[in-house]
């Protein structure tokens, strides 16, 4: 766990937290978007890791939510590359996957994830963790 990225939320310098959803499944992106917009997030989407890196170069984000299995560039590769960039090193990242083995979690943290959730994620759980990771709430109280 020692190589987990250090959290540095609120990089977009905006009152509205900005999140990037990275998943090749359109329905999942729509679901996360609905949940996160209802929680006060400004939402962007990317189809895979490559598209996500392009978006990250163009805008600032307070949080990234990323799947594992995607075409062209998977979630592990995306996070590893993100963590090598000055702008992306501290952005909180939640990895959400169908894979639930301990080795999957370890791989996610080694790549740079700060939190690993297993699909299907309940809306309340997603909203809570997203707000927590983006610095919108503190553990044990409001922000």
């Amino acid at each position, binding site marked *: 766990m020692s190589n987990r990225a250090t959290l540095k939320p609120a990089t977009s310098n905006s009152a509205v937290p900005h999140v990037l959803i990275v998943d090749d*499944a*359109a*329905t*999942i992106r*729509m*679901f996360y978007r*609905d949940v996160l917009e209802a929680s006060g997030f400004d939402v962007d989407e990317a189809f895979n890791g490559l598209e996500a890196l392009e978006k990250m170069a163009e805008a600032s984000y307070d949080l990234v939510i990323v799947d*594992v*299995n*995607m*075409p*062209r*560039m*998977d*979630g*592990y*590769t995306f996070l590893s590359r993100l963590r090598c960039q000055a702008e992306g090193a501290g952005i909180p990242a939640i990895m959400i996957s*169908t*894979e639930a083995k301990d*080795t999957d979690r370890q791989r996610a943290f080694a790549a740079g994830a700060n939190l690993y959730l297993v*699909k*299907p*994620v*309940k*809306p309340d759980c997603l909203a809570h963790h997203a707000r927590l990771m983006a610095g919108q709430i503190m553990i044990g109280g409001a922000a």
Partner: protein
Amino acid sequence: MGLIRSKLVDEGVAAADSGQLLDDLESTDPAARRNAARLLAGQRDSVDALADRLRVESEPSVVETLLTAIGRTDGPRAVSALVDLLRDEDAARRNGAIETLQEMDPEVVLQEIAGLLDDPDSDVRIFALGVLHRLRHPSAACLARRVIASDPHVNVCAAAVEVLAEIGTPDMVADLEAVAGRFRTEPFMAFAVTAAIKRIA
């Protein structure tokens, strides 16, 4: 264009010693491995060697060339070599195999993939549905329909619903409603089914 490319590949293999190319697949130089894979593309006799290299290759550009080389070979052996990779621990190799299989002969791929929908590993069943998603085979939707009717795993059924949202037909609406009922405690399933029905009804 395909004929020209095949001719060039044949000439390349003829010009080079195929034994040397197989040796080059194990070279310590990634450029040599990449070049060997490129020249062995489409050669059925080389599928096993290409697949063996692919299982241990760590250089992304060589992995991509190996996948392309096997994908251009087609036939049951090539498909089987890529299907084996759906169990690979490496996500890039696994996802590359899924993308390559989607571009191969749908008839051959479907025969291999159909059996994986009953695999005891739910992740493998999900990856098999990932292949079906863009396979362009008339039976793909029927297989996904069978999955939502019987698979006990919520994520496998969600993957099948995603397939049906793309290639399902209006007569599958009742099956979609049934799977939403089967997983009624999962808000995502209700959301996914509603979205799928909106698209296909």
